């Protein structure tokens, strides 16, 4: 707090830079979670999704739903939550749901790639 009792907000650029550094540091984990979703969705379309893989996909979707928005990817929360919900069911996703899971994973991939490109240093 400053002398006027206001919250001290650091330079916006400084905070954004610090957040970007965290994004870069945790990007491999985020991409790993996404890879789990892509792999599970592919297995679901082939009818080979194992319960353990479904459980892993459920956990990965839950984590992505909880974190993407904090890195400015608000558009990732809804597809991640929908994915989490689809994998939370006891039953294996049906063919229609499997196609939806592929699309949701693809949407998440596109968002993450856009964020990566926006932050990539100029060549």
């Amino acid at each position, binding site marked *: *707090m400053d002398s006027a009792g206001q*919250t*001290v*907000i*650091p330079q916006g650029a*400084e*905070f954004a830079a*610090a*957040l970007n550094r*965290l994004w870069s*540091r*945790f990007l491999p*984990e*985020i991409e790993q979670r996404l890879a789990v979703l892509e792999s599970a969705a592919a297995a679901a379309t082939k009818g080979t999704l194992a319960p353990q893989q479904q459980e892993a996909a459920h956990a990965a979707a*839950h*984590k992505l*739903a*909880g*974190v*993407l*928005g*904090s*890195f400015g990817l*608000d558009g990732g*929360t809804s597809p991640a*939550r929908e994915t989490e919900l689809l994998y939370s069911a006891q039953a294996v996703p049906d063919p229609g749901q499997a196609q939806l899971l592929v699309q949701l994973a693809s949407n998440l991939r596109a968002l993450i790639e856009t964020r990566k490109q926006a932050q990539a240093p100029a060549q």
Partner: protein
Amino acid sequence: MAHSILIIDDEDDIREVAALSLESIGGWQVIVAASGTQGLARAIEHTPDAILLDVMMPGMDGPTTFRELRKNPVTAKIPVLLLTAKVQSSDQRRFADLGVDGILFKPFDPLTLHTQIAGALGWN
């Protein structure tokens, strides 16, 4: 004097973004723990002004950690806010029934996390 807050979350990314936010924007003193067990130890050691507690953690989960905090006279009165990505109303009711001081939702906005916490705890 700056507030002190203990963040208990097993997810490194969430923990670090929250810590960055509360330290650099809120100006608070932040203590972190990566598990319920570690969180209990840090809470006893530092007696922070408040605890931000993740719900879903391997081993000792958030609700169990909360009950343990309440059992210990050193930590029993420290306000606890749950942090969760569960948005279904049945989950929210279950968490509220625990007797926590508030529930915050992931994903949080790092620019406003400190105001959400301060508001929930009446620190404004």
